[in-house]
């Protein structure tokens, strides 16, 4: 907790600020969904939120706790199936318009993600949930953004397992393996926002929150970051905090 807002609030608001009225947002649950819901309930009322379970543009009167929650079904434009959602992402007419928000236990300098195992795949030290739809979203949609707790053990040079393809080994390698489009554009963390150098697709610091210094962010990162162009991200405004706390998550189901 810093000043009068938490790290979780800051990163959620940083996410919300970057969602536009025309965006079609693929979401899991948790903080990324709060960010998308906040955008929809404030400056981007026409953005569409959808889930891999097949629910498109639901009312979201209450916060769903998994993407299978009945709260993703009520008031939707359509309730279909998993395949409906994934076909929508893979289809070359609709997929490019989707903005996917992902997460993971480990991330590497090219935005590849691990949510499967820590340690050896055959004899893991820790078993994680697995891809779910993350690998699919990372493979298929036009743009992705990634939510991460900014810790050295999570920002690693080499993933234990690559669940979700980011920029793979850098510029050009997505199309080399046959991925039709996409790639991560931002990583939104507890300390700042990172983007990817357009000529190399390697991660770099784009902005840092008021409570975090670029040098400290490098300290919390397990690989070398270019922090030279980082700007300070504006603190949450009172309106933003009020929207998040009172309108989006009044029961504090996700925020703490």
């Amino acid at each position: 907790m810093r000043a009068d807002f938490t790290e979780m609030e800051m990163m959620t608001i940083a996410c919300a600020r970057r969602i536009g009225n025309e965006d079609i947002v693929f979401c899991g649950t948790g903080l990324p969904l709060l960010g998308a819901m906040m955008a929809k309930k404030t400056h981007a009322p026409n953005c569409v939120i959808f889930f891999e379970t097949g629910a498109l543009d639901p009312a979201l009167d209450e916060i769903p706790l998994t993407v299978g929650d009945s709260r993703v079904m009520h008031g939707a434009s359509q309730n279909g199936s998993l395949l409906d959602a994934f076909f929508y992402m893979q289809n070359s007419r609709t997929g490019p318009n989707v903005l996917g928000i992902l997460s993971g236990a480990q991330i590497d300098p090219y935005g590849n993600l691990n949510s499967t195992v820590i340690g050896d795949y055959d004899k893991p030290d820790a078993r994680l949930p697995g891809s779910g739809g993350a690998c699919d979203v990372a493979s298929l949609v036009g743009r992705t953004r990634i939510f991460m707790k900014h810790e050295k053990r999570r920002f690693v040079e080499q993933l234990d397992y690559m669940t979700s393809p980011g920029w793979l080994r850098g510029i050009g390698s997505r199309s080399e393996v046959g991925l039709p489009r996409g790639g991560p554009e931002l990583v939104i963390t507890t300390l700042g926002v990172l983007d990817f150098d357009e000529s190399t697709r390697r991660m770099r610091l784009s902005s840092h929150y008021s409570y975090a210094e670029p040098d400290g962010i490098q300290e919390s990162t397990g690989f070398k970051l270019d922090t030279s162009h980082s700007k300070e991200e504006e603190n949450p405004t009172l309106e933003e905090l009020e929207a998040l706390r009172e309108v989006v998550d009044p029961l504090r189901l996700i925020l703490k």
Partner: protein
Amino acid sequence: MVTAKLMTSSEAISKFVCASSSISLGGFTVNRNPMALVHEIIRQEIGNLHVMMHSGSQALDLLIGAGLVRFLEIAYGANGRFASTCIRFRKAVQDGSLQVEDYSNFQMSLRFLAGAMGVPYLPTYAGLGSDIISKWGFSKKQRSTVESLPNEKLIVTSNPFNSIPEQLVIVPAANPDVTLLHVQQASAEGLIRIEGLAFADIEQARAAEHVIVTCEELVPSDQLRKESWHNSLPHLLVDAVVHHPYGAHPTACFLYYDYDAAHLNDYRSLAEDDESFEAYLTRHITSLESFHDYVKLIGTKHLGSLLASKELGYARREH
């Protein structure tokens, strides 16, 4: 007419599921898990199972915890806010008692679709470049001895319609011996109706050799034949129908009741410890004669608190 499909869950499970069967479970994380049927598998101690899933949670975790699953092909073993990784799943993989192979949700859904379509594979771009393609959970040799496993995991191939090289990955069909579903309505004839999201239930059912369905409401077939375009499966595909109100508890059944957050949170703690997990199984499943006793155990009053608003499909949270 034909009512031979109407039976108890005990009859349905003993008739269609046996040791080493390959099975798939319908629903998704906190919704429409076929709990009554999974309880019955645990009561009957049918083991050495091969489970094929997209996103497994409560039902799968019980089966794994009861030591009944030998092979698992899966995309996701978690339950949202109720378990960032399913507890017994995590433990079983870590202690090596469960052999797992990873796919993505789209890939698993496509595998069921391929099985439903009656083709050996389907193409996709999902997963290209990832370890989901390069890392296998089962060796080539093991695949040749376990009939329900595909000969290969995923194969990268090219598009022969395109003169410019274009890569795709093809996923092998999944054809489980039995698919277990919990749905809102069914008829004795075997008609079923799912409301809200269908998840991959339809593909899982069509891909299977046999389909067992539990339902909240048993309704006359005539009623379901009136707006037959809302039916989810034709009667010919369903082998057994069991009437089990609350058959998905503690997961939700859209329009009928919400998930039981307290129960799921308790479970997460109990599952962390082998003894308390065993006690959970005994108290809720193995010491009981049927799922009806489980419903009594949970209690009318508590279940009443989960009742869904017919308008919203879930129970409004108290402010």
